[in-house]
């Protein structure tokens, strides 16, 4: 059974839920730009964005009264959003590895 959000926490829970996705994307964006432009300073901002995500997951867990199984969902979110951009980046690099030159005006598909 679930323990519904307290009335006083509805807004905090909704904002925290939105921030999880928003900062998941900002972390992914900064992570990708840092690697693409080879600018380590962006990676620091990426990790700061990830830190906000972790805080947002924490607020979500508290306001939504996450216990037992629901704590596992929170852990999956924290780990999943950290790992996903790295995996996707590696997939990108792998799928583009045969692209000639810098990729501008790439080869036409068959």
């Amino acid at each position: 059974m679930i323990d519904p959000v307290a009335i006083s926490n509805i807004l905090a829970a909704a904002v925290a839920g939105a921030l999880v996705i928003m900062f998941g994307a900002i972390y992914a964006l900064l992570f990708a730009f840092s690697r693409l432009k080879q600018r380590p300073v962006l990676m620091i901002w990426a990790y700061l964005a990830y830190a906000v995500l972790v805080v947002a997951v924490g607020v979500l867990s508290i306001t939504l009264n996450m216990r037992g199984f629901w704590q596992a969902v929170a852990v999956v979110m924290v780990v999943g959003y950290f790992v996903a951009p790295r995996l996707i980046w590696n997939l990108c690099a792998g799928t583009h590895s045969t692209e000639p030159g810098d990729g501008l005006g790439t080869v036409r598909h068959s």
Partner: protein
Amino acid sequence: MSIAALNSANLNAGQKVAVKYFTVAMVLFFAQCLFGMLAGLQYLQPDFLYNVLDFNVNRMVHINAMVVWMLFGFIGSVYWLVEDESGTELVGAKLANVNFWILTLAVTVVVLVYLFVQTGPGTKETIWFINEGREYIEAPRWADFGIVACVLIFFYNVAATFMKGKWSGISGVLVLDLVALAGLYLAGMFYTTNISMDQHWWWWVIHLWVEATWEVLVGCIMAWGLMKTLGARRKIVTTWLYIEVALMFGSGILGLGHHYFWIGTPEYWFTIGGFFSALEPIPLVAMVVHAVYDSGTHNFRNSNHPALAWLIAHAFGNFFGAGVWGFMHTLPQINLYTHGTQWTASHGHLAFFGAYATIIIAMIYIAVQKWRGDVWMSGDLADKGWKWKWSLGLLNVGVVGMTVALLISGYEQSFVERALEGSTWGGYFSAQTQPWFIQGMHWRMLFGWVTTAGVVLLLWDLATIGKKETRRAIDPTVTPATT
């Protein structure tokens, strides 16, 4: 190939069918806005058109017009690319044309019945001939059978064309997805007096269409669209299509559970729905990384600026509408208060527009370009492209404005009606009279006008863009000479 004038000689057989579907889709898009505006006005003036065109009818036409125009848009998009992708002629062009007219006629009859025969008690006969009573898919059962038959004919045409020509990763995913698309509709045709059971199967159609099969269909269209507008390589888009399908189906199918929280289904759906709903945004985050990677390697040299702009709007709209607005209220602890309120309507408006309307509009711009003989549609258009830019801006600002306004009303409704007053009848009316709710509805109306203005401008632009152009489209796969 003639240039600038709309000339069907520029199109192959599949594309000739496609432009018919696109035309009806745009008419229905306008109808969706029109009836949405009427329903929105009735929130502000409940007596407006009372007993003439009631709110329940306007809302039903608004929602059904959206579902049907998107279906028409998807069918048109697939017909548009089928010959190009298979490398052969459409096997049943005549059948496709007959199918189009039957489907369009059936939709017209259903809409006329919606508008003129929505009175009297619901009986088994009304389920067959008037209204099936299931939100989003209210079409009576005779029309259900017609829709399934038309989709099967469409499926036959597409699958047989690929079988005659050549298969590709995109076509394989597309054909398998069409099987699921047609098959799932059958789940919405059961009749049962048990409301929980009815809702259980109804969600198979709604959720598994919208958050699984439609997403994959859009993935196929996007993959093809990126090859055409950006010159992306087939191997790359196909690989990404497979990954996207795996992520979408992996999280989306059991994400169905978030619709089973409050309809009388067992409690284990809380666990399943909560877990998979948390995973559903991951494909969207994956797209962010991929988009950055691709922008770095392709530099956005493209042959069709309006189409690419709408594809970018799709990426953002899908992320915010489905991802952010979805996860905000999807876990059961908060969904207890938010489901079925204006909060849900807020999510629905941004998600449907962002994920689906945008990409269909992009495909229609690609179609218009070819219809006018591969006319120039990059930068420096004759009229500076003000119509497509303004329609893009008005539509996006309008829909985002409606989304925020509905969120404010929805928050107030969740708080007062659900959390404070425990979902009582009195709580419902109490929430409807709160200042924040009413102000949200006024703002929604204002942004509804902005959206409608955007639709009108879009239709005008689609009818005229490239008309005075004399240049041919650029080939995005050719690298320009550098100085």
